[in-house]
């Protein structure tokens, strides 16, 4: 193993380096200057993100434990972008007095989960996968409980860590059976001997349940709403896009590489789960008043839509999944960015009814949120439309027209509740609308990036083309 080989692990190395840098800053800076950590970290991380896009060699390391390809790099870059936006959006929140002594911890925790996700995506065996997965989950529990003054926040933390532990327990049980029936934990070796005996199916289902937990598929989704609601907004946004995105990536990779043989089985499983996820997510979202909880259920139903791309397992499907996650990052972060800005500015107003008449006082934020929600609903000309369209194309490609029909009908329900928020902002009248406030530069920058992304990604076909060219499939 030569030194250059470490270039393959560029993302992970850089992130680790950043963790170290932030740790050093934390240790050696005196309290009064700690707020400077924010711009520095954001700047550094922006640099890391940009470096991530530079061309890089691909290959495997550590005897196949670590593998990287153009697609892996793309996924990691997408996650980096998401995390970068989260960082930018969180800057204002971190400035609050209640967070003044835990600024760098926020960055360290997020960066370490990001490392975990990167390793998870790049993993070539179940051991690394498991390790990455845990690295990506455990700190998030702490992040969810970050707001130590809030009951809800600690409740979110405990719910997350326990659900996560249970799910990883079940998944491990499945993994052990996979190991026992195939004699290996390496993806390629497992894939080559996997036949689909009952025990292997059981193992797969248990593994699936673990992943389903991360992606919050019904019926493994119940933690989602509570955690999203309780956690600080910026953590929720991170959780809902980056964490979920990473899980989706590795999930689709494993499905088409390891479980290639039992594709008909998992396609059926996903069929059922996807329908459940979309429908239940939507049904719950209709009734929510807390906007974070609302977005949580919306993200559950979005997960159902993402599964539409996974189910085909085709090149197109995988490309559309990756593309959709990219779009989803911008849409969801746009929405959460506005929620975060308002929550931070008003000291925690997070109910949809608080948004009544928002357009009169804060038109900019209202438009941003509207665009983001339209993107989630799949309305042109924002990127979400393209994302959904490709997902639907992918599912139709495999001939799942019934599923497609259910999915499109679900989009109507989802449109309904997205419009409820739009209605609150534009149409409802309120005696005490949220007063006009000025956001700081970071928040504006974060939202601007999201809007730009939403508008550009859909029309700029090269993005999708590039992803498609990297894509993999059954």
């Amino acid at each position, binding site marked *: 193993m030569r030194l250059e080989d470490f270039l393959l692990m560029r993302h992970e190395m850089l992130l680790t380096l950043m*963790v170290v840098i932030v740790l050093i800053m934390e240790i050696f800076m005196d309290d009064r200057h700690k707020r400077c950590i924010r711009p520095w970290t954001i700047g550094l991380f922006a640099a890391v993100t940009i470096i991530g896009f530079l061309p890089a060699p691909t290959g495997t390391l550590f*005897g196949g434990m670590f593998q990287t390809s153009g697609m892996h790099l793309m996924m990691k870059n997408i996650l980096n972008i998401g995390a970068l936006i989260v960082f930018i959006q969180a800057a204002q929140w971190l400035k609050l007095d*209640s967070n003044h*002594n835990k600024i760098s911890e926020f960055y*360290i925790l997020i960066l*370490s989960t990001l490392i975990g996700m990167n390793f998870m995506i790049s993993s070539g065996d179940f051991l690394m996968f498991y390790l990455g997965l845990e690295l990506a989950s455990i700190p998030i529990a702490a992040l969810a409980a970050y707001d130590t*003054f809030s009951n809800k926040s600690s409740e979110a933390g405990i719910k997350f860590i326990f659900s996560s532990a249970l799910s990883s327990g079940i998944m491990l049980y499945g993994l052990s059976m996979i190991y026992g029936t195939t004699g290996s934990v390496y993806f390629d070796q497992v894939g080559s001997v996997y036949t689909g005996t009952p025990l292997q199916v059981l193992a797969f289902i248990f593994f699936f349940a673990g992943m389903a937990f991360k992606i919050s598929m019904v019926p493994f989704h119940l933690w989602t709403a509570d955690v999203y609601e309780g956690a600080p907004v910026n953590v929720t946004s991170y959780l809902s896009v980056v964490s979920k995105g990473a899980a989706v990536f590795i999930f689709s990779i494993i499905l088409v590489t390891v479980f290639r043989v039992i594709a008909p089985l998992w396609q059926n499983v996903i069929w059922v789960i996807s329908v459940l996820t979309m429908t239940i997510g939507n049904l719950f979202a209709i009734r929510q008043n807390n906007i974070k909880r609302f977005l949580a259920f919306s993200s559950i139903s979005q997960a159902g839509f993402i599964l539409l791309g996974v189910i085909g397992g085709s090149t197109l499907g995988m490309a559309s999944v990756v593309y959709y996650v990219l779009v989803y990052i911008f849409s969801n972060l746009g929405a959460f960015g506005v929620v975060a800005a308002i929550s931070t500015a008003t000291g925690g107003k997070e109910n949809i009814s608080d948004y009544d008449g928002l357009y009169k006082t804060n038109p900019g934020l209202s438009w941003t949120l509207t665009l983001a929600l339209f993107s989630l609903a799949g309305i042109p000309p924002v990127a979400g439309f393209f994302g959904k369209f490709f997902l639907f194309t992918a599912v139709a490609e495999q001939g799942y027209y019934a599923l497609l029909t259910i999915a499109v009908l679900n989009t109507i329900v989802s449109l309904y509740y997205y419009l409820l928020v739009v209605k609150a902002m534009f149409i409802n009248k309120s005696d005490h609308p949220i007063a006009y406030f000025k956001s700081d530069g970071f928040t504006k920058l974060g939202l601007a990036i999201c809007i730009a992304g939403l508008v550009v990604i859909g029309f700029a076909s090269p993005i999708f083309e590039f992803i498609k060219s990297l894509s993999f499939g059954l």
Partner: protein
Amino acid sequence: MEINELMFVIIGAVIILFSIFTVTSRRILRAAAFLLFVLVATAGLYFWLEYQFLAAVQITLYAGGIVVLIIFSILLTSNVGEKIDKVETKKVIFSALAAIAGAILCITTILQQQFQATDALAQEVNMKVIGKSLLNYGENGYALPFEVISVLLLAAMVAAIVIAKKSKTS
């Protein structure tokens, strides 16, 4: 019945019994103690399988580390003598049903499986092999997980501290 088999039966029985005690005992400290027994018995099982290193880790980390942590936190958060409230019957029944059904499902499925053992020679497991494996970055080397888990532990540490530390302002 050979002594080995007897050992297995005993260890197995201990594990199952004390597991059940762990999850049913109404005194929380006792439950912790029962858990300790289970973990130690598991270590015994590893010894029995001649994985001494693992057994040692099990005892030090699990029994020594986690259980101690748990006991500390029990002491922090509960009255030692306090009994936990009884669980509603409905919950017990449903949970038990789920667990039993799950166990039956898994066991029947396991028993259907024809496990294929490898023909390759068994590898001796000693400290040297383990050490080499941990530092090996080729196939069947575990250098990478070894490194990553350090990040994990660091992160967990930071996480635990950030949550548990008393805020200066409060």
